[in-house]
């Protein structure tokens, strides 16, 4: 469904992502692992349309989307949750969700239905529906941004480091929800530093190091690989 070939992303003269090729089939949850600075987020942001690719191609269901804008990717069914939990702090939870459904805004009933589904999946959000998003805790904000991305009813979800900065129990809850989304048939590309958690929910994984793909395989294969530590810590 999603095919990335030979991707390169530059920040000025620095190549943060080099010759990255990966594949995500429909219904899969693929994890993109690696240490800080390995280029995972840059790869994801490039696929999402927020960063420009200096080389390589991105294909979605056969269509070339390498230079598609972020808005365009959303219209094609790719929703992104960047790291850093970008809720709009002054907008309420409800307004955040409503904005997530922007591309579907004309179909009021479908939007309302999706919103109810999301609030059922994330009950804590339902409680805080008219509160400004900036007053939510970190875990609640993470739930909000995932729910908000789901409001556009995407076929693929790009998730960037959902566990970052959250307490372990909250992380468990988040991953339970990711599992629930996966079970509903959603295709997910998950960038994570927390390899254990990611591999527990993933079908396949890629490990990145210094901008390149260093290892790929099924989740089981990657979990068993002993040089995961060295890949993370250098050497």
């Amino acid at each position: 469904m999603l095919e990335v070939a030979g991707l390169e992303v530059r920040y000025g003269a620095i190549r943060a992502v080099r010759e990255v090729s990966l594949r995500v089939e429909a219904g899969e949850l693929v994890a993109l692992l690696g240490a800080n600075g390995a280029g995972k987020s840059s790869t994801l942001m490039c696929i999402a349309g927020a960063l420009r690719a200096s080389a390589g191609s991105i294909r979605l269901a056969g269509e070339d989307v390498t230079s598609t804008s972020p808005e365009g990717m959303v219209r094609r069914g790719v929703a992104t949750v960047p790291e850093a939990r970008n809720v709009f702090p002054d907008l309420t939870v409800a307004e955040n969700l409503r904005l997530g459904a922007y591309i579907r805004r004309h179909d009021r009933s479908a939007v309302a239905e999706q919103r109810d589904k999301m609030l059922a999946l994330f009950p804590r959000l339902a409680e805080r529906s008219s509160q400004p998003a900036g007053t939510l805790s970190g875990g609640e904000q993470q739930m909000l941004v995932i729910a908000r991305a789901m409001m556009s009813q995407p076929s693929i979800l790009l998730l960037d480091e959902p566990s970052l900065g959250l307490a372990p129990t909250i992380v468990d809850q988040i991953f339970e929800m990711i599992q629930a989304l996966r079970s509903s048939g959603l295709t997910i590309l998950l960038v994570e530093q927390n390899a254990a958690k990611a591999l527990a929910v993933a079908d396949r994984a890629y490990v990145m190091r210094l901008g390149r793909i260093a290892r790929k395989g099924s989740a089981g294969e990657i979990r068993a690989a002993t040089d995961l530590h060295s890949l993370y810590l250098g050497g």
Partner: protein
Amino acid sequence: MRFTIQFVVDVLSLGGAYALMALGLVIVFGILRLVNFAYGELIMVAGYTMFLVSGSGLPWLVMAAVAVVMAIFAGIATDYVAFRPVRAKSVTAVLITSFAFSTLLQNAALLFISPRPRVVPLPEIFSETVQIGGVITPLRNIITIITAVVLLALFAFLMRRTVLGIAMRAAATNFTMARMLGVPANLIISSAFAISGLLAGIVGLLWIGRIGTVVPGIGLEPLLVAFIATVIGGMRSLTGAVLGGFVLAFIDTGLNYSLPQELLKFRDAFTFSLVIMILLVRPEGLMRGPASGQRT
């Protein structure tokens, strides 16, 4: 009692006008973080449109509508000419391009129409007077107050209730994130400029209605008002801009009433000094704008 009513009417009508001027400026600044120096020229465009269509024999409201539409076009044109080409480059670049565009428009009016004042048609009700509690005041002041209240209410409704408004508020906080939800960036920006033009057009007609003529430099005073009101109110807050407009009107009217005759011509210097003192105490303005970060 009469004095109070007079004062209140003056402050409210001037404040309403100032608030609208400030709002038209902030709506672009809030989203783009860019100052539109050509904002005053939107009022100039409205004025000259009225002058140019004055011979057409159309009813005044129709001519006014045409003038406001032209102001909207001019607003959107400002985006395409002065902002889009340099938006990504730097903040200073946009300041200068919009300043250059402002000079361009003024000189175009100078060159193609005239440097001398041109008469603008006004509806008769503008010159009528009305009596409130023993005070006689031009009906135009009351119209200004009502227009300001209506427009501000409409604006608040737009921002709070409609998807476009929510999208604009989101874009003001985090433009990229809004795009990643599918919000089309260009539409948001054009809408901001269009609303800016709408507000400028309407308040421009009311403003020109006080003098009845238009000159190329007519946008300067409203621009300055918008600037100062915005700075007082807090640069990116919409409510702040409105509040700043009323505070400025209060200061101006207060000075008008209290300065001795020979100092009255220096009123603007006094206003500015008072504004500087406000800024000394509160450099960030009266109201905080939308937050720019998150909690964790």
